[in-house]
């Protein structure tokens, strides 16, 4: 087995070796999935419908009849809208709380308390406040996304070296300059980490949140395929959920590699 240290030093050969192990991982995953269905691990009656092959055929069918687009687009829209609202709210809050120690002390217990509550617990309240539908789902997703964003931004803004602040002051910096040129750039790597965690947890909460009475979305479609006994489509939907989640996370990793400065 090639060890990490060697392959990082990067000949083309090592690069290809690395790649082939990633591909091998995907292949092994499919093999285990197929084996599980052949061994009837999903029960005697439906194990065949759960196999990767039937899922793949269902996927083609859903791509053709438009089911994928019809349900993936509303799901993505909900997640992205709630993330945007969470960013608008959480980053300023995080910077303020991180910068002012008193504010951090005031908010510490409430924040740590609130963040441990599953947003689904708020579901009845969301429905009373906003009714059944998009707004409730978006609210629940927003509620789950703000915590990683706030807490990581707090950490980033709190990590600003006093040395940088002193230096900025001796250079005649005003509050605005200190905020825009020192504190915010200093917190960017942590903000991006927070964003990555927020995207992950939002995408996870999306599926149960969409089971709460919206007429479309991947979470809704899971229940729909179950009700229609189309377990091949159910597996295909699960596959799509995983795939989109993976792509969202990859986009985040790209953002981090592009914009997070290194120490």
């Amino acid at each position: 087995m090639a060890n990490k240290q060697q392959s990082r030093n990067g000949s083309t050969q090592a690069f290809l070796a690395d790649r082939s192990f990633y591909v091998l991982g995907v292949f092994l995953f499919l093999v285990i999935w197929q084996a599980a269905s052949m061994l009837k691990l999903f029960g005697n009656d439906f194990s065949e419908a759960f196999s990767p092959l039937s899922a793949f055929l269902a996927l083609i069918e859903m791509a053709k009849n438009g089911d994928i687009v019809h349900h993936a687009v509303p799901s993505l829209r909900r997640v992205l809208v709630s993330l945007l609202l969470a960013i608008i709210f959480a980053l300023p809050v995080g910077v303020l709380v991180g910068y002012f120690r008193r504010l951090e002390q005031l908010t510490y217990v409430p924040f740590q308390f609130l963040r441990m509550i599953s947003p689904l617990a708020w579901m009845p309240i969301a429905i009373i406040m906003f009714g059944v539908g998009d707004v409730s789902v978006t609210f629940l997703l927003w509620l789950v996304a703000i915590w990683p964003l706030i807490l990581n931004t707090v950490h980033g803004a709190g990590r600003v070296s006093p040395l940088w602040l002193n230096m900025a002051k001796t250079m005649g910096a005003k509050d605005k300059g200190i905020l825009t040129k020192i504190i915010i750039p200093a917190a960017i790597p942590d903000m991006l980490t927070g964003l990555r965690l927020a995207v992950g947890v939002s995408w996870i909460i999306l599926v149960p949140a969409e089971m709460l009475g919206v007429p479309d979305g991947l979470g809704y479609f899971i229940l729909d395929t179950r009700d229609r006994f189309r377990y091949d489509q159910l597996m295909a939907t699960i596959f799509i959920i995983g795939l989109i989640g993976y792509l969202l996370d990859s986009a985040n990793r790209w953002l981090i590699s592009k914009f997070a400065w290194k120490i």
Partner: protein
Amino acid sequence: MADNGRSTGPTSEALISLKGVTKEYQKNGTWIEAVSGCDLDIAENEFLVIVGPTGSGKSTLLKLIAGFEQPDKGEVLLDGEPVKGPGSDRGMIFQEYALLPWRTVLQNVELGLEFQFGKRGKENRELAMTYIDMVGLSYAVNKYPVEMSGGMKRRASLAMILVTKPKILLMDGPFNALDSKTKLTMHTEITRIWEHEHNTIIFVTSELDEAVKLSDRIAVMNSEGRISKIFTNDLARPRFGKAALEPEFHHRFIELREKVMNEVKAGAGKAVCETR
């Protein structure tokens, strides 16, 4: 106000005036005086070097003048006014590197200019480049701090402060980690800048050669945080190149260094004194 019964008004032409300044720190549960009853007048355009054993409060004294710390007793006056906080008239070069890790050398040096004039593009860049050239980093303008050695970071921090042209330069062991060649360049440059721009420099170091080479006066602090003696350094300038090779100059250089060293040793207590 000085509590030792001296005159209270601003004294004659001193730019910076320390009057009975004491600063205490808590260390292992007991309060110790890092700086103890210091009286010091620094004239405009003076090059004052503060020497003393490690832990004698040299850095603290500098921080008090910079305004990062407030004295527990006594006062620090600047142009007759008490110092209340940091200001752009006093540029501080820290012992640690204060470079921003997300900015390149050029962007770091431009930072102070952005604070003072906003983003001016070419104008800022050219000014920054002048100082980057001066510290010998023009080959590394686009490097990030993480990619640089300690000496490079030190030089970049120096350019970063010098470019803002502060009236008073507070330098806390600025050349400590530099190799001897770069150090010599920096000694020449800092002297040239000082002669050119007529700023006032307060320079902390533990190297006596450096102190004698640069200073108008040398203040020696002892391990109790007091200024035990101030030497006037009337060695002729320039003190670099050919002039430094003259036997007469060399003789007087050594003589002054010996005097300062004896004073430092006398006040060192158990602390270690660095000489070369």
